[in-house]
């Protein structure tokens, strides 16, 4: 049982929902990433998603595209991310999932990637451009090391595919709230809750919703049907707002705390 599984088990016992926070590794710098993860846990974040920057983030909107570019300019790569997670692991047991496009993983080597991820203390992997049909090697290797493989459901997913996706997923299932790319929106679609309830008929695994989440009103609404919510671009925007400030970590953490509660 991975840290992610244990987290959902304890949340369920307390009748609580998960708040998952996304940040890009190395934006604005790797030391801040380390501090943010540690501080987020204290601010009520249940799981942290660390984004691996990529040159061609085709599922991301302008906020995360720019964040990714800034991190790449700092020379961030997988090895540097494994190092920072190792350092983080000395301070906290908060579950950490790595969000990465497929090419950096494929080029690194899937077997080696999973080994190093395990060694660093990473609990799950999320690859937005890798459907389960192409993920056989990654799923097999991750399973050996008890790392969760988190796949996506979207509003356009057919019933036939829902079965494939829930069977391939472990840890939780990532439900994409809208047809589109990542980025903060103020609304959520009216039939989202119906669709999540429909997906829940196929699985008892936790379903968490991401894409477009930017305020506490949305979070509360989504949690009526889902097991958790993922915030990304809204948090990155807050980091940018506080970029030049000394208390960046404190300010962003307090934003995240409000979003999460």
């Amino acid at each position, binding site marked *: 049982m991975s840290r992610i599984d244990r987290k959902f088990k304890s949340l369920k016992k307390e009748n609580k929902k998960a708040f998952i926070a996304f940040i890009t590794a190395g934006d604005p710098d790797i030391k801040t990433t380390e501090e943010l993860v540690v501080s987020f846990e204290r601010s009520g974040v249940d799981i942290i998603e660390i984004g691996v920057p*990529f*040159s*061609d*983030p*085709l*599922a991301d*909107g302008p906020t995360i*595209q720019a964040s990714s*570019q800034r991190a*790449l300019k700092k020379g961030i*790569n*997988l090895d540097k991310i494994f190092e920072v997670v190792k350092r983080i692991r000395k301070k906290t047991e908060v579950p950490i999932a790595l969000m990465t496009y*497929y*090419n*950096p*993983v*494929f*080029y*690194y080597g899937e077997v080696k990637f999973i080994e190093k991820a395990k060694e660093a203390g990473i609990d799950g992997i999320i690859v*937005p*451009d*890798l*459907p389960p*049909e*192409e993920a056989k090697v990654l799923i097999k290797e991750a399973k050996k090391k008890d790392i969760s493989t988190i*796949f*996506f*459901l*979207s*509003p*356009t*997913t*057919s019933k036939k*595919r829902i079965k494939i*996706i829930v069977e391939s997923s472990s840890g939780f299932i990532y439900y*994409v709230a809208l*047809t*589109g*790319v990542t980025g903060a929106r103020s609304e959520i679609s009216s039939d989202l809750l119906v669709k999540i309830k429909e997906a829940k008929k196929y699985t008892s695994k936790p379903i968490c919703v991401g894409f477009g989440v930017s305020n506490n009103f949305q979070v509360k609404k989504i949690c009526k049907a889902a097991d958790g919510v993922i915030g990304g671009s809204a948090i990155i925007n807050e980091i940018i707002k506080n970029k030049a400030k000394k208390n960046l970590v404190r300010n962003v953490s307090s934003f995240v705390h409000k979003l999460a509660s």
Partner: protein
Amino acid sequence: MKIPNKTGHFGEFGGRFVPETLMSMLEDLEKVFNSLKTDKKFKKEFNFYLREYAGRPTNLYLAERLSKHLKSLKVYLKREDLLHTGAHKINNTLGQILVAKKMGKTRIIAETGAGQHGVATATAAALMGLECEVYMGAEDVRRQALNVYRMKLLGAKVTSVTSGSKTLKDAMNETIRDWVTNVNNTFYIIGSVAGPHPYPVMVRDFQSCIGRESRRQFLAKEGKLPNYLVACVGGGSNAMGLFHAFFNDKKVKMIGVEASGLGLNTDKNAAPLARGNVGVLHGSKSKLLQTKDGQVVIAHSIAAGLDYPGVGPEHSYYKNIGRAEYVSANDKEAISGLKLLSEIEGIIPAMETSHAISYLEKLAKKVSGKKTVILCLSGRGDKDVDEIKEII
């Protein structure tokens, strides 16, 4: 063994690497495309537009003065440059727009580098009365101003992409983002034998008329098959269009010419088959120019249509099994190729095609005796005149 297999793999290459939001639609597209393969009415309609609207079959023209100049080669030019809109791209856009209509889509999107595919898409969309938006890197908007204006005249919206390298790669990222957002009513017409399955096989099939016609025409003129097929390779649609019909003619040698930009030994080239590693970009696995961290490298070529760090998966497969040979020509050689054909045959070729032409001089020195060649003259050079004026 069927190539590609039913999951869209050409050996280790190809496949379907896209966000989940697109997966069900791609499965539907695959079903529709497969059903249309045996649909006589669809074939008749497609062939009607190819013949009456685009101007097929195109001529297979014996370039006598060029052959005399090259001495050891007898060169036939497959005149795709004479098609409506000036390049082979129209074959594919007419095919895909008919598929889009079958699927009930009302909006067309496309990426473009040189602008030829954008123009061909805007043309097909105008013909069918569908809304059209074309994404083009800001750098290419500058290099190919004439084609931008042509697209606008055809009623398309041209969106300049300023992210990343501001060229074809980033235009494709932005088109995919639009697609993910508007998947319910929007059809993406991909211009090359690239992208997620079934695009590489679909584009190949719509372009394969180039090879089928060439084969028939060459047999009628020469009573035998050619020794060589030569075509330029960016994503590789004109090359695959020519090669496919000859796949089983084992004696026919195929040569794809990549763009080596400022040189294969510099980091400013667009030759993933020569200099890339296996990677995943824009929906499929193929050879890719990338860094040691798996980040995609910005390609360079004087020809906007070849300025792409990846290549269609079937070309990587052809290279691996040794069915085709891949060579390269640099920016300077391409300019010489353009000048050569213009002066010796009175045909101004596109800068992309000029890479293939320039390679003929090298091939002529390599062969023994007299050999026959079909060269795919994939596009005309009108669009490049402004930029060439600055260089020559």
